[in-house]
């Protein structure tokens, strides 16, 4: 069992982790639009093999052949 100060330190560390994670998501949201589209195109390419492993693809499920 952790002592009370140890528990407080642990809670504070976990709080900082969640705060940093939330801040990272907010920073992603603030990226320039074209950078977000670049990320979207990358996600489309990365996720496709993972989807194929789970189920068959719908005809329109393929990475967009565009630039941001």
């Amino acid at each position, binding site marked *: 069992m952790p002592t009370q100060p140890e528990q407080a330190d642990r809670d504070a560390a976990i709080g900082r982790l969640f705060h940093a994670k*939330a801040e990272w*998501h907010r920073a*992603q*949201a603030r990226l320039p639009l074209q950078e977000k*589209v670049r990320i979207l195109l990358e*996600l*489309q390419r990365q996720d496709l093999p993972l989807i194929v492993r789970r189920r068959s693809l719908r*005809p329109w499920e393929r990475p967009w052949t565009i630039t*941001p």
Partner: protein
Amino acid sequence: MSSLSDVFSAINRLRDSGIVADYAVGGATAVLFYAEPARTYDLDVFVIVRPEDERGLAPLAGIYGWARSQGYEAEAEHILIDGVPVQFLPAHNALVEESVREAREQIYGTVTVRVVGPEHLVALALQAGGAKRRERAYQLLEAGGVDRGRLRDILTRHALPRGILDADST
């Protein structure tokens, strides 16, 4: 290679041709304008069709005819515009219609594009239901661009659950 702004330009040309009275980009592509990117493979566009098309059995027939005339292929429920599968969805209820009419004009590159506002995106996600859409609603709230007073008003007027407003926004 085309860019996403070419796709938005094509949708503007559709609106300018008068085949649709108005449009707004919705779904995950609209979320991009307000929150972090989430993977999607299609682009949803809500449209208000002409009254004469609305009364017919195929309200999107005019759009499919326009697509053919532009050389865009139809693939089941999507139209392939410059490599992007675009799904046109008629404004089928009061919330969708309001979302289109009150959409925001955003600039992408040099192109103006009408995009459903963040409060309406949350309301649409809650109305459509499902885990993925609920996650999208929370994502929008956490990004910080949602006016909670405006969202409350929309949810109340369209008789949608307001529990999401109690969610921690940090």
